[in-house]
Protein backbone atom coordinates (compact mmCIF):
# COMPACT_ATOMS: atom_id res chain seq x y z
CA UNK A 1 0.00 0.00 0.00
CA UNK A 2 1.37 3.39 -0.88
CA UNK A 3 1.13 6.26 1.57
CA UNK A 4 -0.22 8.51 -1.16
CA UNK A 5 -3.93 8.93 -1.41
CA UNK A 6 -4.91 7.39 -4.72
CA UNK A 7 -7.18 9.81 -6.57
CA UNK A 8 -10.49 7.96 -6.41
CA UNK A 9 -13.00 8.41 -9.16
CA UNK A 10 -16.00 10.43 -8.00
CA UNK A 11 -18.95 8.17 -7.20
CA UNK A 12 -21.91 7.95 -9.56
CA UNK A 13 -23.94 9.77 -6.92
CA UNK A 14 -21.53 12.71 -7.05
CA UNK A 15 -21.22 12.72 -10.84
CA UNK A 16 -24.96 12.58 -11.34
CA UNK A 17 -25.50 15.60 -9.06
CA UNK A 18 -26.06 14.22 -5.55
CA UNK A 19 -28.98 15.26 -3.42
CA UNK A 20 -30.20 17.85 -5.97
CA UNK A 21 -30.44 15.16 -8.67
CA UNK A 22 -32.33 12.88 -6.30
CA UNK A 23 -34.81 15.65 -5.53
CA UNK A 24 -35.32 16.45 -9.21
CA UNK A 25 -35.84 12.81 -10.14
CA UNK A 26 -38.18 11.78 -7.35
CA UNK A 27 -41.25 13.74 -8.36
CA UNK A 28 -40.99 12.95 -12.07
CA UNK A 29 -40.52 9.28 -11.28
CA UNK A 30 -43.28 9.05 -8.70
CA UNK A 31 -45.81 10.67 -11.07
CA UNK A 32 -44.94 8.06 -13.69
CA UNK A 33 -45.26 5.20 -11.22
CA UNK A 34 -48.61 6.39 -9.86
CA UNK A 35 -49.98 6.79 -13.38
CA UNK A 36 -48.87 3.31 -14.50
CA UNK A 37 -51.72 0.82 -14.15
CA UNK A 38 -49.32 -2.11 -14.26
CA UNK A 39 -47.77 -1.19 -10.91
CA UNK A 40 -49.62 1.62 -9.15
CA UNK A 41 -51.60 -0.79 -7.00
CA UNK A 42 -48.39 -1.50 -5.08
CA UNK A 43 -48.13 2.16 -4.21
CA UNK A 44 -51.80 2.86 -3.53
CA UNK A 45 -53.36 3.48 -0.18
CA UNK A 46 -50.32 4.97 1.48
CA UNK A 47 -49.17 8.28 2.79
CA UNK A 48 -47.76 10.33 -0.07
CA UNK A 49 -45.11 12.17 1.93
CA UNK A 50 -43.79 8.87 3.28
CA UNK A 51 -43.79 7.41 -0.22
CA UNK A 52 -41.82 10.35 -1.55
CA UNK A 53 -39.27 9.85 1.21
CA UNK A 54 -39.00 6.19 0.15
CA UNK A 55 -38.55 7.14 -3.49
CA UNK A 56 -35.71 9.39 -2.37
CA UNK A 57 -34.18 6.37 -0.72
CA UNK A 58 -34.72 4.43 -3.95
CA UNK A 59 -32.86 7.02 -6.04
CA UNK A 60 -30.10 7.56 -3.52
CA UNK A 61 -29.53 3.83 -3.69
CA UNK A 62 -29.80 3.55 -7.49
CA UNK A 63 -27.23 6.35 -7.76
CA UNK A 64 -24.88 4.45 -5.49
CA UNK A 65 -25.21 7.20 -2.91
CA UNK A 66 -25.04 7.11 0.86
CA UNK A 67 -27.53 4.64 2.27
CA UNK A 68 -27.54 2.00 4.90
CA UNK A 69 -29.60 -0.61 3.05
CA UNK A 70 -28.42 -4.17 2.62
CA UNK A 71 -29.81 -6.84 0.32
CA UNK A 72 -31.69 -8.23 3.30
CA UNK A 73 -33.27 -4.84 3.96
CA UNK A 74 -34.45 -4.78 0.34
CA UNK A 75 -35.87 -8.28 0.73
CA UNK A 76 -37.74 -7.23 3.85
CA UNK A 77 -38.91 -3.90 2.40
CA UNK A 78 -40.50 -5.65 -0.57
CA UNK A 79 -41.53 -8.98 0.98
CA UNK A 80 -45.13 -7.89 1.48
CA UNK A 81 -45.26 -6.80 -2.17
CA UNK A 82 -43.94 -10.17 -3.34
CA UNK A 83 -46.79 -11.80 -1.39
CA UNK A 84 -49.14 -9.56 -3.35
CA UNK A 85 -47.70 -10.78 -6.65
CA UNK A 86 -44.67 -8.58 -7.34
CA UNK A 87 -42.73 -10.19 -10.20
CA UNK A 88 -40.23 -9.51 -12.97
CA UNK A 89 -42.77 -7.66 -15.12
CA UNK A 90 -43.30 -5.10 -12.36
CA UNK A 91 -39.58 -4.80 -11.79
CA UNK A 92 -39.12 -4.14 -15.52
CA UNK A 93 -41.79 -1.43 -15.40
CA UNK A 94 -39.92 0.31 -12.58
CA UNK A 95 -36.68 0.07 -14.57
CA UNK A 96 -38.47 1.63 -17.53
CA UNK A 97 -39.58 4.62 -15.44
CA UNK A 98 -36.14 4.96 -13.91
CA UNK A 99 -34.59 5.22 -17.39
CA UNK A 100 -37.26 7.58 -18.73
CA UNK A 101 -36.98 9.87 -15.70
CA UNK A 102 -33.22 10.21 -16.04
CA UNK A 103 -33.53 10.81 -19.79
CA UNK A 104 -36.01 13.59 -19.12
CA UNK A 105 -33.45 15.15 -16.81
CA UNK A 106 -30.82 14.94 -19.56
CA UNK A 107 -28.57 12.61 -17.59
CA UNK A 108 -25.92 11.23 -19.99
CA UNK A 109 -26.61 7.72 -21.27
CA UNK A 110 -23.55 6.15 -19.65
CA UNK A 111 -24.59 7.39 -16.21
CA UNK A 112 -28.13 6.11 -16.78
CA UNK A 113 -26.57 2.76 -17.61
CA UNK A 114 -24.62 2.75 -14.35
CA UNK A 115 -27.74 3.57 -12.33
CA UNK A 116 -29.72 0.87 -14.12
CA UNK A 117 -26.98 -1.65 -13.36
CA UNK A 118 -27.10 -0.83 -9.66
CA UNK A 119 -30.89 -1.24 -9.58
CA UNK A 120 -30.62 -4.45 -11.62
CA UNK A 121 -28.15 -5.85 -9.08
CA UNK A 122 -30.83 -6.02 -6.40
CA UNK A 123 -33.51 -7.62 -8.62
CA UNK A 124 -33.37 -10.98 -6.86
CA UNK A 125 -33.52 -9.38 -3.42
CA UNK A 126 -36.49 -7.21 -4.39
CA UNK A 127 -38.32 -10.18 -5.87
CA UNK A 128 -37.43 -12.45 -2.95
CA UNK A 129 -35.64 -15.00 -5.10
Amino acid at each position, binding site marked *: MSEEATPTKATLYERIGG*EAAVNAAVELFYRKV*LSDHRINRFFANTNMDEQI*AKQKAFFTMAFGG*PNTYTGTDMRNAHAALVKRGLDDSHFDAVMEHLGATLQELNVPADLIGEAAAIAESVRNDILGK
Partner: protein
Amino acid sequence: MKKIVLGNQEMSCQSDETLLDALLRHEVAIPYSCRQGVCQSCVVRSLDVVPPLLSQRGLKDVQQKQNYFLACKCYPEHDMEIALSQQASFFTEGTVVGKALLNTETVLLSIQCNDALDFYAGQFVNLQRADGLTRSYSIANSRLHATELTFHVRRLPGGRFSEWAHGDLQIGDTLKVSEPQGLCFYLPDRPEQNMLLIGTGSGLAPLAGIISEALQQGHTGDIYLFHGSRDREGLYWIEEMQALQQQYSNFHYTPCISNGLVPDGFAQGRANDVAMQALPKLNAWRVYLCGHPDMVNQTKIQAFLKGASSIDIYSDAFHVTPDLTPSSATTTIS
Protein backbone atom coordinates in the same frame (compact mmCIF):
# COMPACT_ATOMS: atom_id res chain seq x y z
CA MET B 1 -17.59 23.25 21.64
CA LYS B 2 -21.23 24.34 21.76
CA LYS B 3 -23.82 23.77 24.43
CA ILE B 4 -27.04 22.05 23.34
CA VAL B 5 -30.17 22.17 25.47
CA LEU B 6 -32.95 19.67 24.89
CA GLY B 7 -35.77 19.82 27.42
CA ASN B 8 -34.01 19.64 30.78
CA GLN B 9 -30.96 17.88 29.33
CA GLU B 10 -27.71 19.74 28.61
CA MET B 11 -25.19 18.36 26.14
CA SER B 12 -21.99 19.29 24.36
CA CYS B 13 -21.40 19.28 20.63
CA GLN B 14 -17.75 19.15 19.51
CA SER B 15 -16.68 21.43 16.68
CA ASP B 16 -16.04 18.53 14.26
CA GLU B 17 -19.24 16.76 15.15
CA THR B 18 -22.74 17.09 13.68
CA LEU B 19 -25.62 17.75 16.02
CA LEU B 20 -26.98 14.30 15.13
CA ASP B 21 -23.72 12.66 16.22
CA ALA B 22 -23.72 14.67 19.44
CA LEU B 23 -27.31 13.65 20.21
CA LEU B 24 -26.56 10.00 19.49
CA ARG B 25 -23.43 10.18 21.63
CA HIS B 26 -25.66 11.36 24.47
CA GLU B 27 -28.06 8.48 23.75
CA VAL B 28 -30.93 10.71 22.69
CA ALA B 29 -33.53 8.64 20.81
CA ILE B 30 -33.67 10.56 17.54
CA PRO B 31 -34.73 8.93 14.27
CA TYR B 32 -32.19 9.06 11.43
CA SER B 33 -31.22 7.06 8.39
CA CYS B 34 -29.04 8.49 5.62
CA ARG B 35 -26.93 11.00 7.64
CA GLN B 36 -26.65 12.94 4.36
CA GLY B 37 -29.56 15.35 4.37
CA VAL B 38 -31.64 13.21 2.02
CA CYS B 39 -34.20 11.27 4.03
CA GLN B 40 -35.16 14.12 6.38
CA SER B 41 -35.88 11.70 9.18
CA CYS B 42 -33.60 13.61 11.59
CA VAL B 43 -35.52 16.89 11.43
CA VAL B 44 -35.43 18.91 14.67
CA ARG B 45 -36.31 22.46 15.61
CA SER B 46 -34.24 25.27 17.06
CA LEU B 47 -36.06 27.16 19.79
CA ASP B 48 -33.66 30.11 19.90
CA VAL B 49 -31.01 30.74 17.21
CA VAL B 50 -31.43 30.53 13.44
CA PRO B 51 -29.95 27.18 12.35
CA PRO B 52 -27.03 27.01 9.87
CA LEU B 53 -28.19 27.57 6.27
CA LEU B 54 -26.88 24.23 5.01
CA SER B 55 -28.88 22.31 7.57
CA GLN B 56 -32.16 23.68 6.17
CA ARG B 57 -31.61 22.74 2.54
CA GLY B 58 -34.47 20.75 1.03
CA LEU B 59 -36.99 21.58 3.77
CA LYS B 60 -40.28 23.33 3.04
CA ASP B 61 -40.15 27.12 3.33
CA VAL B 62 -42.65 27.01 6.16
CA GLN B 63 -40.35 24.64 8.05
CA GLN B 64 -37.35 26.88 7.43
CA LYS B 65 -39.24 29.90 8.75
CA GLN B 66 -39.99 27.96 11.93
CA ASN B 67 -36.32 27.07 12.41
CA TYR B 68 -36.65 23.40 11.57
CA PHE B 69 -33.42 21.84 10.33
CA LEU B 70 -31.65 18.53 9.72
CA ALA B 71 -29.52 17.43 12.65
CA CYS B 72 -27.21 15.37 10.40
CA LYS B 73 -26.29 18.47 8.34
CA CYS B 74 -25.85 20.80 11.30
CA TYR B 75 -22.52 21.87 12.73
CA PRO B 76 -23.86 24.23 15.42
CA GLU B 77 -22.54 27.78 15.10
CA HIS B 78 -23.89 28.86 18.48
CA ASP B 79 -25.20 27.30 21.64
CA MET B 80 -28.71 26.14 20.83
CA GLU B 81 -31.88 25.03 22.49
CA ILE B 82 -33.67 22.43 20.41
CA ALA B 83 -36.85 20.37 20.42
CA LEU B 84 -37.20 16.97 18.79
CA SER B 85 -40.81 17.19 17.76
CA GLN B 86 -43.29 19.91 17.82
CA GLN B 87 -44.53 20.34 21.35
CA ALA B 88 -46.77 23.19 22.37
CA SER B 89 -45.06 24.99 25.16
CA PHE B 90 -46.65 28.02 26.69
CA PHE B 91 -50.26 28.81 27.28
CA THR B 92 -51.56 32.33 27.46
CA GLU B 93 -54.99 33.01 28.80
CA GLY B 94 -57.97 34.02 26.70
CA THR B 95 -61.49 35.22 27.41
CA VAL B 96 -64.48 34.23 25.31
CA VAL B 97 -65.82 37.44 23.76
CA GLY B 98 -68.10 35.99 21.11
CA LYS B 99 -70.08 32.86 20.43
CA ALA B 100 -72.40 32.56 17.43
CA LEU B 101 -73.72 29.69 15.35
CA LEU B 102 -72.32 29.39 11.81
CA ASN B 103 -74.68 26.53 11.02
CA THR B 104 -76.53 23.96 13.09
CA GLU B 105 -73.38 22.07 14.00
CA THR B 106 -70.62 24.70 14.05
CA VAL B 107 -70.10 27.59 16.42
CA LEU B 108 -67.86 30.59 15.82
CA LEU B 109 -65.88 31.17 18.98
CA SER B 110 -64.01 34.47 19.48
CA ILE B 111 -61.34 34.54 22.14
CA GLN B 112 -59.52 37.64 23.34
CA CYS B 113 -55.99 36.62 24.39
CA ASN B 114 -54.00 38.36 27.14
CA ASP B 115 -50.86 38.29 24.99
CA ALA B 116 -50.59 38.87 21.26
CA LEU B 117 -49.82 35.60 19.47
CA ASP B 118 -47.20 35.52 16.76
CA PHE B 119 -48.89 33.16 14.34
CA TYR B 120 -49.15 32.52 10.62
CA ALA B 121 -52.58 32.37 9.02
CA GLY B 122 -53.60 28.71 8.85
CA GLN B 123 -51.90 27.54 12.05
CA PHE B 124 -53.72 26.00 15.00
CA VAL B 125 -53.54 26.30 18.79
CA ASN B 126 -54.52 24.05 21.64
CA LEU B 127 -57.41 25.29 23.71
CA GLN B 128 -57.46 24.04 27.28
CA ARG B 129 -60.33 23.99 29.72
CA ALA B 130 -59.70 24.59 33.46
CA ASP B 131 -59.70 20.83 34.18
CA GLY B 132 -57.01 20.20 31.56
CA LEU B 133 -59.22 18.90 28.71
CA THR B 134 -57.39 20.07 25.57
CA ARG B 135 -58.24 20.15 21.87
CA SER B 136 -56.57 21.70 18.83
CA TYR B 137 -58.40 24.22 16.70
CA SER B 138 -57.32 26.14 13.63
CA ILE B 139 -57.19 29.92 13.80
CA ALA B 140 -59.79 31.23 11.34
CA ASN B 141 -58.61 34.83 11.06
CA SER B 142 -55.64 36.68 9.57
CA ARG B 143 -52.70 38.21 11.41
CA LEU B 144 -54.47 41.58 11.51
CA HIS B 145 -56.06 40.31 14.71
CA ALA B 146 -53.19 39.10 16.83
CA THR B 147 -55.04 39.05 20.14
CA GLU B 148 -58.61 38.29 19.13
CA LEU B 149 -58.68 34.84 17.61
CA THR B 150 -61.63 33.08 16.05
CA PHE B 151 -62.29 29.34 15.79
CA HIS B 152 -64.91 27.17 14.13
CA VAL B 153 -65.94 24.51 16.62
CA ARG B 154 -67.96 21.69 15.14
CA ARG B 155 -70.12 19.74 17.55
CA LEU B 156 -69.30 16.04 17.48
CA PRO B 157 -71.68 13.65 19.19
CA GLY B 158 -69.90 12.51 22.36
CA GLY B 159 -67.05 15.01 21.85
CA ARG B 160 -66.50 16.30 25.36
CA PHE B 161 -64.79 19.53 24.38
CA SER B 162 -67.03 20.45 21.48
CA GLU B 163 -70.25 19.68 23.36
CA TRP B 164 -69.03 21.80 26.24
CA ALA B 165 -68.03 24.62 23.88
CA HIS B 166 -71.46 24.52 22.24
CA GLY B 167 -73.31 24.24 25.55
CA ASP B 168 -71.89 25.43 28.86
CA LEU B 169 -69.11 27.73 27.66
CA GLN B 170 -70.24 31.34 28.18
CA ILE B 171 -69.03 34.74 27.07
CA GLY B 172 -66.65 35.97 29.77
CA ASP B 173 -65.29 32.47 30.53
CA THR B 174 -61.55 31.93 30.27
CA LEU B 175 -59.50 29.26 28.49
CA LYS B 176 -55.80 28.59 28.12
CA VAL B 177 -54.38 29.06 24.63
CA SER B 178 -51.17 27.37 23.45
CA GLU B 179 -48.44 28.64 21.22
CA PRO B 180 -49.49 28.50 17.53
CA GLN B 181 -48.48 25.30 15.76
CA GLY B 182 -48.66 23.53 12.43
CA LEU B 183 -47.05 23.83 9.03
CA CYS B 184 -50.12 24.46 6.90
CA PHE B 185 -49.87 28.24 6.61
CA TYR B 186 -49.49 31.20 4.26
CA LEU B 187 -46.20 32.97 3.56
CA PRO B 188 -46.33 36.12 1.43
CA ASP B 189 -43.06 35.53 -0.45
CA ARG B 190 -44.61 34.39 -3.74
CA PRO B 191 -47.57 36.73 -4.34
CA GLU B 192 -47.92 35.71 -8.00
CA GLN B 193 -48.32 32.00 -7.23
CA ASN B 194 -51.75 30.52 -7.93
CA MET B 195 -53.36 28.89 -4.92
CA LEU B 196 -55.91 26.12 -4.59
CA LEU B 197 -57.66 25.64 -1.24
CA ILE B 198 -59.96 22.69 -0.58
CA GLY B 199 -61.77 22.23 2.71
CA THR B 200 -64.62 20.14 4.03
CA GLY B 201 -66.88 21.17 6.90
CA SER B 202 -65.12 23.23 9.56
CA GLY B 203 -61.92 22.72 7.56
CA LEU B 204 -62.89 26.08 6.14
CA ALA B 205 -61.46 27.77 9.25
CA PRO B 206 -57.71 27.77 8.46
CA LEU B 207 -58.43 28.27 4.76
CA ALA B 208 -60.49 31.38 5.49
CA GLY B 209 -57.60 32.69 7.60
CA ILE B 210 -55.14 32.00 4.78
CA ILE B 211 -57.39 33.66 2.19
CA SER B 212 -57.93 36.85 4.13
CA GLU B 213 -54.23 37.02 4.95
CA ALA B 214 -53.27 36.54 1.28
CA LEU B 215 -55.76 39.12 0.03
CA GLN B 216 -54.66 41.64 2.67
CA GLN B 217 -51.03 41.06 1.69
CA GLY B 218 -51.89 41.86 -1.94
CA HIS B 219 -51.59 38.35 -3.34
CA THR B 220 -51.83 38.68 -7.14
CA GLY B 221 -52.08 35.03 -8.22
CA ASP B 222 -55.46 33.37 -8.57
CA ILE B 223 -56.95 31.97 -5.38
CA TYR B 224 -59.50 29.16 -5.77
CA LEU B 225 -61.54 27.98 -2.78
CA PHE B 226 -63.66 24.83 -2.93
CA HIS B 227 -65.66 24.27 0.25
CA GLY B 228 -67.55 21.01 0.46
CA SER B 229 -70.09 19.23 2.55
CA ARG B 230 -72.68 16.49 2.15
CA ASP B 231 -75.55 18.95 2.14
CA ARG B 232 -76.30 22.65 2.09
CA GLU B 233 -76.63 22.68 5.90
CA GLY B 234 -72.99 21.67 6.35
CA LEU B 235 -71.69 24.74 4.55
CA TYR B 236 -71.45 28.24 6.02
CA TRP B 237 -70.07 31.72 5.24
CA ILE B 238 -71.49 31.38 1.75
CA GLU B 239 -72.56 35.02 1.46
CA GLU B 240 -69.30 36.19 3.00
CA MET B 241 -67.24 34.25 0.46
CA GLN B 242 -69.45 35.43 -2.41
CA ALA B 243 -68.97 39.02 -1.25
CA LEU B 244 -65.21 38.50 -1.13
CA GLN B 245 -65.37 37.16 -4.68
CA GLN B 246 -67.16 40.35 -5.77
CA GLN B 247 -64.49 42.44 -4.10
CA TYR B 248 -61.38 40.63 -5.40
CA SER B 249 -61.23 39.58 -9.03
CA ASN B 250 -58.54 36.97 -8.34
CA PHE B 251 -60.59 35.14 -5.69
CA HIS B 252 -62.87 32.33 -6.92
CA TYR B 253 -65.27 30.50 -4.64
CA THR B 254 -67.18 27.27 -5.30
CA PRO B 255 -69.43 25.76 -2.65
CA CYS B 256 -69.82 22.01 -3.29
CA ILE B 257 -72.51 19.59 -2.19
CA SER B 258 -71.94 15.85 -2.56
CA ASN B 259 -75.39 14.49 -1.65
CA GLY B 260 -78.93 15.24 -2.62
CA LEU B 261 -80.39 18.36 -4.07
CA VAL B 262 -77.97 20.93 -5.42
CA PRO B 263 -79.36 24.48 -5.55
CA ASP B 264 -78.27 27.05 -8.14
CA GLY B 265 -74.82 28.44 -7.56
CA PHE B 266 -73.53 25.25 -5.95
CA ALA B 267 -71.45 22.53 -7.59
CA GLN B 268 -72.48 18.88 -7.42
CA GLY B 269 -69.84 16.50 -6.09
CA ARG B 270 -67.07 16.20 -3.56
CA ALA B 271 -65.04 19.39 -3.24
CA ASN B 272 -61.79 17.71 -4.30
CA ASP B 273 -63.34 16.11 -7.39
CA VAL B 274 -65.05 19.35 -8.40
CA ALA B 275 -61.73 21.20 -8.02
CA MET B 276 -59.77 18.65 -10.04
CA GLN B 277 -62.31 18.86 -12.85
CA ALA B 278 -62.32 22.64 -12.84
CA LEU B 279 -58.56 23.07 -12.91
CA PRO B 280 -56.67 21.32 -15.72
CA LYS B 281 -53.13 21.78 -14.41
CA LEU B 282 -51.54 22.62 -11.08
CA ASN B 283 -47.91 23.04 -12.10
CA ALA B 284 -46.24 25.55 -9.76
CA TRP B 285 -49.46 26.00 -7.77
CA ARG B 286 -49.63 26.05 -4.00
CA VAL B 287 -52.26 23.74 -2.55
CA TYR B 288 -53.87 23.85 0.90
CA LEU B 289 -56.05 20.98 2.10
CA CYS B 290 -58.01 20.75 5.30
CA GLY B 291 -60.65 18.29 6.40
CA HIS B 292 -61.25 14.57 6.63
CA PRO B 293 -57.99 12.55 6.44
CA ASP B 294 -59.27 10.43 3.53
CA MET B 295 -60.09 13.54 1.51
CA VAL B 296 -56.73 15.08 2.37
CA ASN B 297 -54.70 11.98 1.42
CA GLN B 298 -56.59 11.37 -1.79
CA THR B 299 -56.43 14.99 -2.86
CA LYS B 300 -52.70 15.22 -2.20
CA ILE B 301 -52.17 12.53 -4.82
CA GLN B 302 -54.67 14.10 -7.23
CA ALA B 303 -52.95 17.48 -6.95
CA PHE B 304 -49.52 15.91 -7.28
CA LEU B 305 -50.52 14.05 -10.46
CA LYS B 306 -51.86 17.32 -11.86
CA GLY B 307 -48.38 18.76 -11.53
CA ALA B 308 -48.24 20.34 -8.06
CA SER B 309 -44.91 19.71 -6.39
CA SER B 310 -45.12 17.81 -3.10
CA ILE B 311 -43.25 20.65 -1.41
CA ASP B 312 -46.12 23.01 -2.37
CA ILE B 313 -48.88 20.84 -0.91
CA TYR B 314 -49.87 21.80 2.62
CA SER B 315 -52.37 19.96 4.73
CA ASP B 316 -53.88 19.61 8.15
CA ALA B 317 -55.95 16.49 8.46
CA PHE B 318 -58.53 16.28 11.22
CA HIS B 319 -57.97 13.39 13.50
CA VAL B 320 -61.15 12.63 15.29
CA THR B 321 -59.73 10.99 18.38
CA PRO B 322 -61.76 8.95 20.81
CA ASP B 323 -62.09 11.03 23.95
CA LEU B 324 -59.90 8.85 26.13
CA THR B 325 -56.69 9.34 24.18
CA PRO B 326 -54.76 12.56 24.67
CA SER B 327 -55.08 15.04 21.86
CA SER B 328 -52.44 14.53 19.16
CA ALA B 329 -50.04 17.13 17.85
CA THR B 330 -52.05 17.61 14.68
CA THR B 331 -55.41 19.25 14.48
CA THR B 332 -57.83 17.35 16.59
CA ILE B 333 -61.48 18.12 16.31
CA SER B 334 -63.64 16.68 19.00
